[in-house]
C-alpha cells in the first residue's frame, strides 16, 4: 500500500530528476548551467509560487541565461522541453511583454527543437566528412564565396566573432619601451621610500597604458559584394564588440551609419537598416560619392590620428576615376592609416583593378586580400604598426 507521504516523496524525487534533466539539456543547448546552477534550481523549487505558473520560468531564465541572445531564445527552449505537445506558453503568458512575439506564437517550440536536431545532424555529418583538426584549417583558408553549407557558415561566423577578440588581445600585449613618464606614482614611491626611513630617494612614475587604435570600417554592400557582405558584417560586429572606439558604415549608392546597431548586437534592427539601404540596390555602386558623404558628415568627428580606416570593397565604382582618389586623400590626411580590403585580390591571376582604385593607390597604405578568415587574421600586423 502506498502512503500519502511516500507518494509525495517519490513525486518530489521525480520532479527533481526531471528538472536536473532540463538543466543538463539546457547546458548542451548552450545555456549557462553548471553544477552550481543545478543545485540552485533544485533549491528554487521551494520558493516558486505555486499559483503563478510562470514563476518557475522566470526564475530559470534569470539563472540560466547569460546574455541577450540566450535570453531571447530561452522561451522557445523552455516550451519545447516542458510542453512538447502543447505550445501555449505564449497564451498563458499574457501580460509578459514580447514573449509571444519573440517566439512567433504557436508551434515555435517544436520548430526550434526540430531545427536544433537538424543543425546537430548537419554538424555531425560535416564533422565526419572532414575529420578533426584539418577541417578547421581548411575552413579558415576557404574563400567566403565557396562556403555554402549552413553549418560551415555558422562555424565561420563564430570564428569571425573570435577573430576581432584575438586581434585586440595581441594589440594590447605589445608594449613599447619608455624611458620617461610624466606622472609621479605616489603609491610606489612611498612604498620604495620605506626601507630608507621615508626618504623618497627613488622615484616611480606612472605610464600611460598603450591605447588601442580607433577602427573605422566602411563596408561596400553593393550587389557585386553580395557573397561577402554577410561575413564582413559579422566581422564588423565582432570588431565593434571588442574595440570600444570602433565605428562601422555601410554604403553602395549612399552611406549609412551602422555603429550603434552593431554595438547593440541587434540583428533584427541591423537587417531593417540594411533593407532600407538596399532599396537603391540596382543603381550600381557609388564609392566616391559615399566616401564624400562620409567625409562631410563624419570625418572630423570619427577620424583622428589614432584612427585606422578600413574599406571593404572591390572598388567597382560607377563614377569618374579621379573622384575616389580625391576623397581617399582627405581621409588619409587625417587618419593614421587607410587599409583597402579587396575580396577578389587573391583570385588566381589577380583581378583587374578598377581605374578609380588604381588612381587612388597612393592614398592607400595597404591593399590587402580579404577573401578568407586567414586573410582577415593577417590584418593584425597592419593594425599594430
Amino acid at each position, binding site marked *: 500500500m502506498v502512503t500519502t507521504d511516500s507518494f509525495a516523496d517519490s513525486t518530489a524525487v521525480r520532479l527533481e530528476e526531471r528538472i536536473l534533466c532540463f538543466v543538463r539539456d539546457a547546458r548542451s543547448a548552450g545555456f*549557462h548551467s553548471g553544477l552550481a546552477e543545478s543545485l540552485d534550481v533544485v533549491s528554487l523549487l521551494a520558493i516558486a509560487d505555486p499559483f503563478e505558473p510562470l514563476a518557475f520560468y522566470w526564475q530559470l531564465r534569470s539563472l540560466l541565461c547569460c546574455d541577450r541572445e540566450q535570453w531571447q531564445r530561452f522561451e522557445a527552449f523552455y516550451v519545447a522541453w516542458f510542453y512538447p505537445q502543447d505550445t501555449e506558453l505564449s497564451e498563458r503568458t499574457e501580460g509578459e511583454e514580447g514573449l509571444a512575439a519573440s517566439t512567433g506564437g504557436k508551434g515555435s517550440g517544436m520548430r526550434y527543437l526540430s531545427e536544433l536536431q537538424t543543425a546537430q545532424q548537419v554538424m555531425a555529418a560535416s564533422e565526419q566528412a572532414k575529420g578533426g583538426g584539418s577541417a578547421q584549417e581548411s575552413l579558415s583558408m576557404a574563400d567566403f564565396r565557396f562556403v555554402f553549407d549552413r553549418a560551415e557558415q555558422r562555424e565561420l561566423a563564430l570564428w569571425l566573432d573570435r577573430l576581432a577578440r584575438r586581434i585586440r588581445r595581441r594589440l594590447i600585449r605589445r608594449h613599447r619601451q619608455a624611458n620617461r613618464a610624466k606622472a609621479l606614482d605616489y603609491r610606489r614611491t612611498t612604498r620604495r621610500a*620605506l626601507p630608507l626611513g621615508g626618504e623618497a630617494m627613488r622615484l616611480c612614475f606612472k605610464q600611460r597604458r598603450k591605447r588601442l587604435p580607433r577602427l573605422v570600417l566602411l563596408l561596400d554592400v553593393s550587389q557585386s559584394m553580395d557573397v561577402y557582405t554577410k561575413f564582413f558584417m559579422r566581422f564588423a560586429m565582432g570588431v565593434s564588440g571588442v574595440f570600444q572606439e570602433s565605428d562601422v558604415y555601410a554604403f553602395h549608392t549612399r552611406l549609412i551609419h551602422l555603429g550603434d546597431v552593431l554595438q547593440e548586437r541587434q540583428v533584427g534592427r541591423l537587417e531593417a537598416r540594411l533593407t532600407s539601404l538596399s532599396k537603391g540596390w540596382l543603381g550600381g555602386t557609388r564609392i566616391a560619392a559615399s566616401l564624400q558623404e562620409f567625409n562631410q558628415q563624419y570625418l572630423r568627428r570619427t577620424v583622428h590620428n589614432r584612427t585606422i580606416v578600413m574599406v571593404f570593397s572591390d572598388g567597382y565604382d560607377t563614377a569618374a576615376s579621379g573622384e575616389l582618389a580625391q576623397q581617399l586623400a582627405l581621409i588619409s590626411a587625417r587618419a593614421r592609416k587607410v587599409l583597402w580590403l579587396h575580396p577578389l585580390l587573391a583570385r588566381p591571376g589577380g583581378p583587374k583593378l578598377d581605374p578609380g582604385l588604381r588612381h587612388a593607390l597612393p592614398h592607400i597604405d595597404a591593399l590587402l586580400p580579404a577573401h578568407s578568415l586567414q586573410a582577415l587574421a593577417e590584418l593584425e600586423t597592419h593594425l599594430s604598426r
Partner: protein
Amino acid sequence: MTLTVSEIQDQLAGVDYVADPALSTCLQLMSVLRKPVLLEGDAGVGKTEVAKALSRATGHKLVRLQCYEGLDLGSAVYEWDYQRQLLAIRMLEAEGRKTAEESIYSRRFLLERPLMQAITSAEPVVLLIDEIDRADEEFEAFLLELLSDWQISVPEFGTVKAVSQPTVILTANGTRELSDALRRRCLYFYVDYPSFDKELRILRAKLPALDQALATQVVGFVQRLREAELRKSPGIAETLDWATALLNLQIKDLSDAPQIIASTLVCLLKTQEDQMVMDAESIAELIEKLR
C-alpha cells in the same frame, strides 16, 4: 525571511517603481541565492532606477560606483592616504622609532572608496556598479573575487571580509562584451522597453498631475516613435521629461498645438539625424494615428 514576488512588487510600487513580476522574481532570487544581478538593456529603460528603488524600498543605503574607461582600484576600492602616511613617518622618526611599516599600513590610513565602503558597512547596503562595460577588463577581473567571495585583498595588511553582504546590482548596455566569468557569477535580466500599459502606469506613478487622456496620448506617441527606425530610441526617462514639459506648457491634447509639440520633441529625439527623420509632417502623421 524570503519575501514573495508580490510582496517585492508591492514594496517597489510603494516607492513609485513599477516592476513586472519577472523582474520581481529575479530580485527574489537575488536575495535567496545571495547572487548579484546583471541588468542589461538600452539606455534609458530604467536599469539604474532598479537599484535606487530597491534602496528606497528596503531602507538600505545606496553605494554607487560609476564605471568609466581607466577606472582603477585607487578610485573604486581603496587608496592609501599618502600625505598622512608621510606625516606619520616623520612623527615616528622624531620619536626615534625605526619600524614605520606596521604603523602606517593600518586601517587608519586607508581611504575607503565605494567597493570597500560597501563591504565594510555594518548595515547592509545596495551596491550599484553602473555601466560595468565601460570599465576595463582588468577591473572586471578584480570584481570576480569580490562578487564570489565577498572579500577584498589589501596586500599590505591582508584580506578584508564583508561585514554584511551587500545587495549588488550591475548594469551594462553593450559598450563592450563582458567576460563569461563575470556573467556566470550573476543572475541575468534583460530590461526591455516597457509595454504600453506598463509605461502608462509608470507615467501615472511619477506624474500624478498629468491628465489621464494626455498620458495615454503621450505613451502612444512614444511607443510609435520606438517602432520607427531611430538611431536613439527614446527611453522611459525621455518620456517622463517630455510629459513634464507638456504639463508645464499646460497642453491638454497633443493635436491642439502641433508647433509647440514639435518644439518640445527635443526631449525625445537626441540626435540630429533623428530630428531630421521626424519632421513636422511625420509628427503630424503620428499624432493623427493616435486618434
